[in-house]
């Protein structure tokens, strides 16, 4: 059967690509130990893609306003860590196979947490549900904080860490994307979308709204849990502070910025938002010249796009004589340039500011926040809106089979 051929081929293709990437990254690290953090960035990027796509299932596809996704991430991480610490020594599996066990353990634990929160979603709507999910995350975090056997505020060490697990992270991300994508192509997925659009109408059409919501919460949080478990095993240390509210907000932002409901959007926004805070690191900490150049170019490109959009909007919104319009645009652009130069000079003149060593952590968050606000102001419906067109078009253009092969 043709479909099976396509399916098996795409699974093999995925595996080859993932392991190819893994070996490439390992080669990079072997060559230059200082590139280790790039490997780490790749792992974190993969995890955030998983988190964003799985939250998109709850938030974007099913329309349940959940803003506490980090709590499921956390439950998975602690479950995986406890599992490894207690069982790894006495079981026969190798470190690679163990990753599957850990991910599964994290997924199950987080899935149960998802079930509990999902049951609340039956009675609460909108902002109220949002604040309950947020509260749930805080409660879990504070409970862990107060449990000495989970390491309390110092965090939990995982003795048998596995810092060569990029491939597992990538497979998880691909699996998550594939599952959500597949779902949306079947009537089951339509039922999820219908619940997002109108609960009353969908239940009148025979959709079991309860079941859909709870399923969405369970599946979405299970993926987040698996991601958490892999994070724990990769890092070897997890602390409650890794899963603070701002992580939830970051994930939520990825979903909204990508366009609620759009899987492609979530993936791209996750990569974008994840990488934005890393640029100042290059710029401020004086990385290698190519890094500084690359980062500056990227940042410049973003700024350019943003300003072009802004200017375009002023053009679109202004209905008046051509002359004033041109003057305005010139004014905006010129003002911007003069402003930047002035600001730079002023900063350079004030000795405190000129010699100040910037707090990189804070600088990157500021960077993130500004990008967030500006992007929201320019394109509030998110990069992709409800659409998936980028993906589908690309697939059609390449005459590729059905997207979303599955390595299980």
């Amino acid at each position, binding site marked *: 059967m043709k479909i099976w051929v396509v399916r098996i081929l795409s699974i093999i293709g995925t595996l080859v690509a993932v392991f190819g990437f893994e070996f490439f990254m390992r080669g990079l690290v072997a060559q230059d130990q200082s590139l280790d953090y790039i490997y780490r960035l790749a792992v974190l990027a993969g995890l955030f893609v998983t988190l964003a796509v799985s939250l998109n299932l709850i938030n974007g596809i099913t329309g349940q306003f959940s803003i506490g996704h980090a709590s499921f991430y956390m439950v998975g991480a602690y479950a995986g860590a406890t599992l490894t610490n207690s069982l790894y020594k006495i079981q026969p599996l190798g470190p690679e196979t163990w990753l599957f066990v850990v991910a599964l353990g994290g997924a199950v634990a987080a899935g149960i947490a998802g079930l509990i929160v999902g049951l609340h979603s039956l*009675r609460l709507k909108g*902002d109220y549900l949002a604040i309950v999910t947020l509260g749930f995350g805080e409660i879990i975090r504070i409970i862990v*904080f107060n449990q000495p056997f989970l390491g309390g505020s110092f965090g939990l060490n995982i003795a048998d860490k596995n810092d060569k697990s990029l491939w597992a992270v990538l497979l998880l991300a691909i699996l998550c994307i594939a599952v959500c994508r597949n779902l949306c192509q079947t009537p089951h997925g339509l039922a999820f979308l219908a619940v997002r659009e109108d609960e*009353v109408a969908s239940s009148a059409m025979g959709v079991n709204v309860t079941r859909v919501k709870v399923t969405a919460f369970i599946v979405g949080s299970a993926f987040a849990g698996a991601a958490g478990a892999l994070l724990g095993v990769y890092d070897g240390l997890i602390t409650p502070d890794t899963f603070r509210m701002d992580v939830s907000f970051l994930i939520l*932002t990825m979903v909204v910025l990508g366009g609620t409901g759009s899987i492609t959007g979530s993936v791209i926004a996750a990569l974008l938002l994840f990488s934005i805070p890393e640029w100042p690191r290059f710029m401020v900490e004086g990385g290698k010249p190519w890094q500084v150049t690359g980062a500056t170019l990227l940042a410049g490109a973003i700024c350019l796009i943003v300003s072009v959009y802004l200017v375009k909007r002023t053009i679109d919104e202004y209905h008046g004589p051509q002359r004033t319009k041109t003057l305005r645009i010139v004014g905006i652009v010129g003002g911007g340039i003069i402003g930047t130069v002035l600001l730079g000079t002023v900063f350079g003149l004030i000795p405190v500011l000129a010699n100040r060593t910037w707090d990189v952590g804070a*600088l990157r*968050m500021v960077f993130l926040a500004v990008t967030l606000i500006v992007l*929201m102001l320019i394109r*509030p419906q998110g990069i992709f809106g409800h659409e998936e067109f980028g993906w589908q078009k690309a697939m059609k253009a390449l005459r590729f089979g059905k997207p979303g092969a599955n390595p299980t």
Partner: protein
Amino acid sequence: MDVLLSPLAGLQMDFGALPQQLVNGILIGSIYALIALGYTMVYGVLRLINFAHGEVFMIGCYAALFTSWAMGFTATGMQAAKPPTSNIVTLLIMLFVSMAVCSLVGVTIERFAYRPMRNQSRIASLITAIGVSLLLQFGGQLFLPPLQQNIQAEVNPFRDTISLTLRQAPASLKQEFKTASLAQKAAEERLAELAPPGALTSELSPEALEVRERLSELTIKSNSLRAQVNDASVFVVIQKGKLIMFAAALVLMIILRHIVLKTATGRAMRAVNHDFQSASLMGVNVNRVITYTFMIGSALAGAGAMMNSTFEGTAITPFAGVALGVKAFVAAVLGGIGNIPGAVLGGILMGVAESLVVWVGLSGYKDAIAFVILIVILLFRPGGLLGSSAVEKV
């Protein structure tokens, strides 16, 4: 389960300490209420969770701090030969500056971040709010003085306490304690007579040894009696400054009530709260109402910020607004978001609940209790305590 419940084993409930904790809770609750009012008012008119409200509070704290510095209340200033003295005017200046700065910040945020998003989906505005909140937090970390800061304690001129005894210990017990402590004192004097201080045991006469023995017995007895007297009597100690804080919060709330119920602006606010669309169709200047709402709400947060950091002495960091903001928001939801008396009720309840958690000895869970209450309440009354939960008509 065992492990989870283990902290419950260490519960301590000293009922004599309860009134004190309740009073503490109500006092801090008034601050929560002030901040919760800002959340509730904004939600009422815009249906937006103003995540940046906690950061407005944080800015209010710094405004108060800088004002106090400008008036000479710095660490070095306090060590100067003639340190500045504080009085009610100092406090009023700080309060005013803090409220003014906060209103300005609030209105600016509304104008430049929220207004352009008004016709967009609510989640988009929410994300913008989160963005503003992050920007203020980390921008603060970049530009504001590093490390945590405290307003000098001397800024608060009302540091003396008043003590309120709610229940006296029984007279007989008190009498017993008095006799015991007299006997103890007598034994002490006798011992001092018999043996010079610092004398070795071997140098003591038998009588002195006996007196020493008796003294240690008497000390134990009088100490235990003192503890009994303390346990039997119930009293509350309050710093005068905190009472002033509470009173000021009440006054501000009464003023707010007056504005909302008696003025034209208040009427417009209530109209927008009730139905944004119709209100604007009926000629209410919605933009102006929203500006006023942000102005008033932020000013209240500023007042809360100044009083919290002056009278409660809470440390100021660029992230001070996060925890407090979340708590105040929960308080607002608890009372029924969009409902002004609800916010006050929720704030006070929140303060009391927190101090009760501390009272039973679970202070590690202090920050979680807000959410536990919230979830429980929402499950039974989805609209909050005073809010209404309208059923959707089909």
